[in-house]
């Protein structure tokens, strides 16, 4: 447990050291979202229709971009070796890293999303649903992402390969997440989508650290 906390603290410390990192992830999200109106055109009705999809896709990409960092640096400088030699089970340490990743990359998105939703003229209720869907969904992104990041570790062309592996796995989260907001905008209940998202999260919390650990062991040997 100590080592778990130590890992979370160290990763948060590293993120804080790169002072701007959390903020830049946020701005990346904002910029990607703003690219769409620029590419598509400014009509409000149209934008409101595509808003949930665009916001969720941007959240996906923001989460994915920061995945590279998750294990790569630790692999290169030998920290991962040290982690696997630690008496604390590797899966626990991996969970710590995933938690830190979500705290620095997922949580800020959840908090910022309503502001951006306003730019797309979403109603207050829809904004609430958007936040809840992101709150349930972004941890899933970090968890699944960890598996991908571990699998592509030390593999040539890792960065792009990673997105190739991970994006398809993200699709359920995307469909339920964006679906929840759309259902709410369309006046249907968002509850069904949200509980499916919750189920995904539960599944991820149980299995992802284990799978990521197995993948890390492969990369290490």
């Amino acid at each position: 447990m100590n080592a778990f906390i130590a890992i979370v603290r160290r990763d948060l410390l590293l993120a804080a050291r790169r002072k701007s990192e959390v903020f830049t992830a946020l701005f990346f999200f904002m910029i990607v979202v703003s690219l769409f109106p620029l590419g598509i055109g400014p009509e409000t009705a149209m934008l409101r229709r595509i808003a949930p999809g665009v916001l969720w896709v941007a959240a996906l990409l923001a989460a994915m971009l920061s995945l590279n960092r998750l294990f790569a640096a630790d692999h290169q400088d030998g920290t991962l070796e040290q982690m696997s030699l630690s008496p604390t089970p590797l899966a626990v340490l991996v969970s710590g890293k995933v938690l830190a990743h979500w705290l620095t990359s997922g949580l800020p998105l959840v908090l910022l999303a309503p502001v951006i939703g306003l730019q797309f003229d979403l109603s207050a209720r829809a904004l609430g649903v958007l936040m809840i869907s992101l709150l349930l969904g972004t941890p899933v992104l970090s968890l699944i992402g960890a598996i991908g990041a571990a699998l592509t570790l030390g593999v040539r062309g890792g960065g792009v390969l990673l997105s190739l592996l991970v994006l398809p796995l993200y699709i359920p989260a995307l469909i339920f997440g964006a679906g929840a907001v759309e259902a709410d905008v369309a006046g249907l209940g968002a509850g069904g989508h949200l509980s499916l998202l919750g189920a995904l999260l539960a599944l991820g919390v149980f299995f992802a650290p284990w799978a990521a650990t197995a993948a890390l062991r492969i990369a290490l040997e």
Partner: protein
Amino acid sequence: MLRAHGLACDRGDRRLFSAVDLCVSPGEWLQVEGANGAGKTSLLRMLAGLSPAADGHIEWDGRPMGEARDDYHARLLYLGHAAAIKEDLSALENLQTAAAIAGRPLDEATALAALRRIGLKGREDLPARVLSQGQKRRVALARLLCSQARLWILDEPFVALDVAAVTQLCGILDEHLARGGMLIFTSHQAVQLAGSGATLKLSASTHPRAGAEPREVAA
């Protein structure tokens, strides 16, 4: 006590070495020697449990490694070519987190004392990025000063160190041995250690195919 028998290592389609036997008891050191590419790093990683052996088996305190793994790792300190130094963290933070990950947290005073002893006085709070090559190695070596591990496996610990630091490190290793610690290390430089020890010579085999290889001289 670490004992290995009949170890072999394959890399690509080469058999680097085979039939390597070794045994390290408390208070003893073992220096692994060999030309560049002979397989020293490969052997050390195998002994640390980081990569599987192509053949042979390893015992810790009389139990096969498979069983003893957790106990073994709790008592092992391994430092490889890559020193696990985070460029963005200060020397102090690097030392403290390395210790915490290894499951033996350090308080700040102890960590600072270790850094000062290893010659990083006044550099404790610089990010590792700006340290010189030798100073980075020293940050990694500071872990030795706070370690209670029984077995140290060090891959070229003397690299990049200046003469004074080499002498100091020898002293640290001697202390460890005197306390009844065990030590396995590699070095291309000649090193004088107190205590009893042995040398294991790996000679690079040029035979391209895995198979029967002349037995290496074991310690």
